[in-house]
């Protein structure tokens, strides 16, 4: 068993060339940056807000803010990390507006270490995701990650879905590296625990045997 491989977003040097051109007023260079990162920003925003319309708003607002503040971008970090930071802040603002009864912040969710201990050890079936159709799987993954507190969810999405490094995630969320690591561990273990219900081996879980004769037209 080895380490997981991260996604690579795109060459940094090209990114810098585009940013510098955009700073000089070349809108087509900025549009290229939008093209390059709009899908990432949308995913992050939808993971945080759990709402598609809000995610669409966040994409627009984040890029517009980046455009308006481009002159302030110092080029010491990657443009993408800077953009993610803007997008996360916009998304958290949306979430606060939608759930005013709860204070939403990345600093919440500090619980005892016990909540990160695995509760369910049962092994999963091989290729467990293949037990479900694509849409069922998306539903399961979406429901499961939505159950995590926003602070855990955001760290997991930036690190493991979007492939930011621990340091980039810390910079984007204005958290310390140890805080990112601790949240990431807990997020990973909690997701694993919850997915076990669908993916574990024998007949204990909710996993279904799908075959052509099941007559399940519910798709």
């Amino acid at each position, binding site marked *: 068993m080895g380490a997981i491989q991260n996604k690579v977003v795109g060459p940094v040097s090209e990114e810098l060339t585009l940013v510098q051109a955009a700073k000089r007023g070349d809108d087509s260079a900025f549009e290229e940056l939008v093209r390059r990162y709009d899908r990432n920003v949308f995913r992050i925003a939808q993971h945080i807000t759990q709402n598609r319309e809000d995610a669409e708003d966040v994409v627009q607002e984040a890029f517009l803010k980046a455009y308006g503040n481009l002159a302030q971008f110092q080029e010491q970090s990657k443009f993408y990390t800077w953009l993610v930071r803007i997008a996360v802040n916009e998304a958290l603002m949306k979430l606060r507006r939608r759930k005013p009864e709860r204070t939403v912040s990345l600093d919440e969710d500090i619980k005892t270490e016990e909540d990160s201990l695995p509760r369910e050890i049962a092994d*999963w079936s091989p290729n467990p995701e293949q037990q479900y159709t694509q849409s069922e799987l998306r539903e399961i*993954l979406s429901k499961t990650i939505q159950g995590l507190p926003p602070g855990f969810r955001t760290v997991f999405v930036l690190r493991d879905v979007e492939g930011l490094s621990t340091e980039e995630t810390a910079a984007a969320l204005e958290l310390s590296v140890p805080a990112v690591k601790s949240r990431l*561990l807990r997020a990973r273990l909690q997701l694993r625990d919850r997915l076990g219900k669908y993916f574990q081996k024998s007949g204990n879980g909710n996993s279904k045997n799908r075959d052509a004769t099941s007559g399940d037209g519910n798709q």
Partner: protein
Amino acid sequence: MKCAEFLQELTNYLDGVLDDKTKVELENHLSWCHNCYVVCDTTKKTIEIYRDSQLYELPEDLRSRLRSAIMTKCQQHKKRGPQSV
């Protein structure tokens, strides 16, 4: 290495940033502790399933609509000056 120590190092192990000595100790632990092996394996699968899930993909039509809205707003902003964001 004990199970609690394995858990402490799990994230570093999966991220490939463990030093060689700790990595050997951890893999030695995994070779005889079935529970920790399962936790490690299924945590890795969890990450891979999410990473490959294409959850919340932006459909192309919505994508181009958003992009053109963004660029229109950017141009309006340029005309109005830097106070308008």
